[in-house]
């Protein structure tokens, strides 16, 4: 197959090295062009994210190992090979295929089942298409990877659940309110996590954001980022009534929202449900309010528990996903073998045609007295004879190739049917990767 993959990810390489290997989107076309120029490279694809950089290539039959690719990485990122090598993994043929499938399906991600990676892989694919660095084999491999990723996302539960605290907050808000469009969220206190949650909520359609912080100035600064409004701490109570989701993360040593305040609030809201997220420590909201009807209070521990629980579930689902990947790798292998049978059959037919024509000419030279009609009959006879004889092996070859797994067997079949020069059959330990490429 001659497919090689060299890469570094979050488990193999420290962040410093990953940073140096990173190829920004703007530099991708040029990096691909350079990769194409590397000796022996037939097809190539570059995938670079903050967690990984992977170089997927298919080399021609003259290539001897993936060293040129290693040199390419070393040269391009100005890193000596000795420094680079211990942090890289190298894979070949079906192992490389399996790796790409796993990456696209987010089975190799830092956060199992996260959804960003598939988009990044698609971007890498499109960039390679644009630079015309993909051919039949890698193009087919990538398209297969997308369908595997899609299958895994829909058939297993790996991507069903939120993976971070802010995502859990959003999911819970959706469970309560359904659609978040037109809802109002209040951000009480400045904090990274609170801001992140608020941002996710606005992405989901929350319209109004009210921010309050210890100083009005700080509140204004944050509010500007969300296109929201800022209010002072003293005024906050007057706005509660209109707030559907409250994210509280103040540094106050006492409760910012007492139970009696919430009870009063619910009367004024005419019991419309409210979602309170308390990510402060010590807590900002009296935990007793969770017992009130239509009040849903989650503190940081509650959210963390949900993240942990979904993580366990994702790990469980990953096992199913892995077996699906195995099946798909086998399917890809069949597809690839099928790719090679076409040229083989064409060659076989061409050779037969040639033999037939030679024999016919020789015969006609010896019998010049044949009538035109007789010549024609003779030629028809020979042609149908050749076709009849070739029909069976053609059908069989297609079947056989689809099922062959061992490269050694492929060589044997090829030597049986391929016209012209015989090539030596490799011993299994020499590896199938040195096989002649026919596609």
């Amino acid at each position, binding site marked *: 197959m001659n497919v090689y993959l060299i890469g570094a990810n979050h488990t193999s390489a420290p962040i410093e090295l990953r940073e140096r290997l990173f190829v920004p989107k703007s530099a991708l076309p040029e990096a691909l062009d350079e990769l194409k120029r590397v000796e022996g490279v037939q097809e190539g694809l570059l995938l670079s994210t903050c967690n990984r950089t992977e170089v997927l290539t298919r080399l021609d039959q003259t290539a001897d190992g993936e060293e040129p690719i290693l040199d390419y990485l070393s040269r391009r990122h100005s890193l000596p090979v000795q420094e680079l090598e211990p942090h890289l993994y190298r894979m070949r043929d079906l192992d490389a295929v399996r790796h790409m499938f796993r990456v696209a399906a987010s089975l190799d991600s830092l956060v199992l089942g996260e959804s960003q990676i598939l988009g990044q892989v698609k971007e890498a694919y499109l960039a390679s298409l644009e630079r015309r660095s993909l051919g039949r084999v890698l193009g087919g491999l990538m398209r297969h990877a997308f369908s595997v990723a899609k299958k895994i996302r829909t058939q297993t539960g790996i991507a069903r659940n939120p993976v971070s605290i802010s995502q859990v907050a959003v*999911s819970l808000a959706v*469970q309560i309110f359904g659609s978040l469009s037109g809802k109002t969220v209040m951000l009480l206190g400045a904090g990274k996590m609170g801001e992140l949650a608020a941002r996710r909520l606005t992405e989901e359609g929350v319209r109004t954001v009210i921010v309050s912080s210890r100083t009005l100035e700080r509140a204004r600064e944050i509010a500007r980022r969300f296109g929201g409004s800022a209010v002072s701490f003293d005024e906050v109570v007057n706005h509660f009534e209109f707030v559907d989701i409250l994210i509280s993360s103040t540094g106050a040593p006492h409760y910012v929202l007492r139970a009696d305040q919430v009870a009063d609030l619910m009367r004024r809201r005419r019991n*419309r449900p409210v979602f309170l997220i308390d990510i402060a420590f010590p807590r900002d909201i009296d935990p007793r309010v969770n017992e009130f*009807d239509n009040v849903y209070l989650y503190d940081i521990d509650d959210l963390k528990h949900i993240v942990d629980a979904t993580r366990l579930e994702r790990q469980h689902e990953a096992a199913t996903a892995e077996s699906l990947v195995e099946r798909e790798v086998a399917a890809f292998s069949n597809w690839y073998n099928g790719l090679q049978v076409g040229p083989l059959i064409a060659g076989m037919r061409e050779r037969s045609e040639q033999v037939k024509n030679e024999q016919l000419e020789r015969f006609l030279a010896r019998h010049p007295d044949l009538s035109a009609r007789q010549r024609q009959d003779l030629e028809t006879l020979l042609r149908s004879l050749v076709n009849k004889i070739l029909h069976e092996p053609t059908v069989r070859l297609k079947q056989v190739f689809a099922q062959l797994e061992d490269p050694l067997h492929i060589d044997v079949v090829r030597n049986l049917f391929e016209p012209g020069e015989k090539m030596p059959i490799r011993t299994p330990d020499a590896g199938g990767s040195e096989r002649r490429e026919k596609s």
Partner: protein
Amino acid sequence: MGLFFLRLTLTLYSAATLAAFGAVLGRRRWWDRVVPGLIGAGCMTHLVALVLKGIELGHCPLHTTGEIVSFLSLAGMLIFLFGFYRRGLQILAVVLLPLSLVLAVVSNLLPAQTLSLEGSSLDGLLTIHVALSTLGVAALFVTFAASLLYLWQERALKQKSGAALLRLRLPALETCDTLIHGTLVSGFLLMTLAIITGALWKASTLSGTFWIWERRESLALLAWAIFGALIVGRLLVGWRGRKVAYLAMVGIVAVVLRMLGVTP
């Protein structure tokens, strides 16, 4: 022949209910074809059974309690299909399908006793009364289903068992709430009209009284009062949530008991 189709219907409904539970519990691909297919087939055979019955009787098969209950079970299935295709509310299956199945079974067990007293032929007013009550009860079934889902979702949110929640994909609380309110209002209005037409019919056929106090009628009145109070309470002071869901379910149970002729 009608009996054959009825039995086939019961088999299909049972299979559909089982398949829907399987789908909820993880066989998510069954939603694509299996569940809607089984329900669709069940509704067809049910319709055929009803038509055959109608031909046999020579009139619309809505005269006995059993016939009305049978019709309601068909309505329950159709409501589910509507919710499924138009609103994506697969989870309604958990409540509506077993409910419809039970109704379909019950309808076969009930004695074939006609509603009309002294065997008088059904006049227009009574037909309208029966139609209104049937539609009202169908709307209340959805209220019942939505209430159960609301309570389920609410409980999970309060207990913070979020992971299990996210897996089941119940409809959002506010979706359930809207559904409860909407169907409760339509059920209440239909029921009110049904009570009025019922009273008018009694006045026209019997001794000119609008209301004969029977103990079993108290169930209908109780339900009507609960629904009315829930609707007014929501408008005036914003009653909603858990307690509303519980009360609505109590009212609906009363309606169904009344319909089946239970005397308190």
